């Protein structure tokens, strides 16, 4: 396999397969990851091929999953943990924040924590409560963790490889509503750096900054704006911690306008951090304040209302218009 067109979910599956083949210390663990292949089938067929010792169905207890993954990492393993849905990570939040993130510093650098925690996140799939959330900023706020999220199949494949190879804990957010979107994956390519942003579409009038599921939305918004003669640049952040401010800054110095888009609530969201830092870095370049589009400060709504809660094409274009009006 060299270049193949794969759904994002299948690219993740191939990436896990490759990691299991390459490194005998890689262990995939989580709920229903064995025979079922996970509720989204990301681990489909892996237990059959690699056995129950390496693709481990765990008891139904998220803190236990992450806590034992930490112990396995101390023993020299590289656990890749699946949390079934975004809203179910919180029983493990204590282990992630108080233990996983701090272990290396507490050991004065003698301990490595190569643990990947995969979390399908975001809405737009008509799910019930706790199945559509975007908690990425709750993890980005914690020193010791790295937070990344792919937006397409190629990044899904390569970023997961890189996350597994990292000696630091990585929270790997998967845009679940894009699982079925197909994209080219070159498994023999030389991948870019894990924590670098990517210019997904070049433009000159304004920068739309997004990650995960919102990259596609922003690309659609840029295409729509182009029909009105507006040249919109779209930057796919890819990594939320660390943030690649150099790429963002270069884009903003060119376009002089920035709109950040994410599904997570705007209040204390990653857009707030980006707006503050870009304002510091690009104060004399900006023609307009950095604007943000995202979820509201309300619990994630019932599925019938989520289209109003989530940033869609129109809300993104509205922010584009507001920025350009300055």
């Amino acid at each position, binding site marked *: 396999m060299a270049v193949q067109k794969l759904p994002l979910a299948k690219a993740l599956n191939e990436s896990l397969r490759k990691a299991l083949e390459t490194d005998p210390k890689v262990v995939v663990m989580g709920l229903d990851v064995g025979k079922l292949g996970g509720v989204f089938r990301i681990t489909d067929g892996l237990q059959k091929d690699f056995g129950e010792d390496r693709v481990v169905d765990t008891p139904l207890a998220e803190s*236990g999953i992450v806590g034992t993954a930490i112990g396995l990492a101390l023993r020299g*393993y590289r656990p890749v943990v699946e949390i079934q849905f975004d809203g179910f990570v919180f029983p493990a939040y204590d282990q992630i924040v108080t*233990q996983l993130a701090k272990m290396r510093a507490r050991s004065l650098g003698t301990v*490595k924590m190569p643990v990947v925690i995969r979390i399908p996140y975001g809405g737009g799939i008509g799910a019930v409560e706790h199945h559509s959330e975007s908690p990425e900023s709750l993890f980005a706020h914690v020193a010791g963790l790295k937070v990344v999220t792919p937006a397409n199949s190629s990044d899904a494949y390569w970023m997961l490889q890189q996350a597994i190879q990292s000696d630091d804990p990585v929270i790997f957010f998967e845009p679940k509503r894009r699982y079925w979107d197909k994209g080219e994956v070159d498994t023999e390519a030389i991948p870019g750096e894990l924590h670098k942003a990517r210019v997904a579409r070049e433009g000159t009038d304004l920068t739309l900054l997004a990650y995960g599921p919102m990259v596609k939305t922003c690309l659609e918004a840029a295409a729509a704006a182009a029909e009105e003669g507006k040249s919109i640049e779209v930057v796919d952040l890819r990594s939320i911690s660390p943030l690649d401010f150099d790429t963002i800054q270069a884009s903003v110095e060119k376009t002089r306008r920035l709109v950040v888009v994410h599904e997570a609530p705007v209040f204390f969201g990653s857009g707030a951090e980006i707006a503050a830092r870009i304002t510091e870095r690009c104060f004399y370049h900006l023609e307009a304040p950095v604007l943000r589009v995202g979820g509201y400060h309300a619990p994630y709504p019932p599925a019938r209302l989520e289209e109003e809660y989530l940033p869609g094409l129109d809300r993104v274009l509205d922010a584009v218009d507001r920025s350009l009006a300055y």
Partner: protein
Amino acid sequence: MTVESTAARKTTRRSSGAKRTTSAASAKKASAAKSAEPELVQLLTPEGERVHHPEYDIDLSAEELRGLYRDMVLTRRFDSEATALQRQGELGLWASLLGQEAAQIGSGRALRDDDYVFPTYREHGVAWCRGVDPTNLLGMFRGVNNGGWDPSSNNFHLYTIVLGSQTLHATGYAMGIAKDGADSAVLAYFGDGASSQGDVNESFVFSAVYNAPVVFFCQNNQWAISEPIEKQTRVPLYQRAAGFGFPGVRVDGNDVLACLAVTRSALERARRGEGPTLIEAFTYRMAAHTTSDDPTRYRRDAEREAWEAKDPILRLKAYLENEGHADAAFFEELEAESETLGKHVREVVRAMPVPDHMAMFDHTYADGHALVDEERAQFAAYQASFEGGEGE
């Protein structure tokens, strides 16, 4: 050994602890299991009399017995020195293990070098058994680090302050041992308070399901700061193991011989691939929870005095003397060794340097992080702006 035989285990000696009585009828049923004296394994009575147990026994040479005594005495001396150093302002805090020496030395001396220990923040005696330099334990209490040693150098994990978290790490580590096909075992410590934590119960579930080679050593010292054991449980803690499908046993936590015998047996069981065991070491926290605590607000002196009669060191001393296993010279030499240790600890702690300002950025990540690099550089520039001035 089966779950049933363990749960039903009776001892030849009963605890000399005070009987509990309940007045409220509604509480009677809940306390039924406790209204009888707890069944516990004992090999050495509080008076220093050697007794025997049908399932657990131990045959130690006079030298080995003196070794256990020495471990307990030096651990207590280290502990009292640390308490004194806190009172002198050299440490910010200290969590004393006073009264728990037998539980820690007995269990700690049951370990092989290739076994792995996951402590709470009070396992100073176990650290001693693992060969961890005792002064290393004081770094976090002095405020110069948040852990401060390489866990793999003595197979002794960092102290863990969030209660019970380490029991899951222990279980995961044990799962790794099993994957490796090794015959090492893991010893996980926690206390009666932490037994209420979800993580501890999840570690019981995981270790049972995966048959992991881990031994859970719960030091029930009767108090979780101000809350007595009755606020944590309606059944003796060791009985909880049965519900998870593995054996539980209560041992006299002030009897170093019993703690050694029971832990050794449980570790061997784990090595044989027979899975986890829960040991409840029934003991007492003679000191305050930490140097910041004031036990006069919540417990009576009489309770402490009753437990003083069961002191772990005094009972082994009585046994050593009665059996002629140690002479006056041994005790005198040990006294001198204790004072040397205290002096050494004092000197090392007082000389412990405050880390360089920049050290706070170190080791946050293994592979680096752009924000840490940026903030480190900003902070260095800020510090440098004081050069030649008052700042340093």
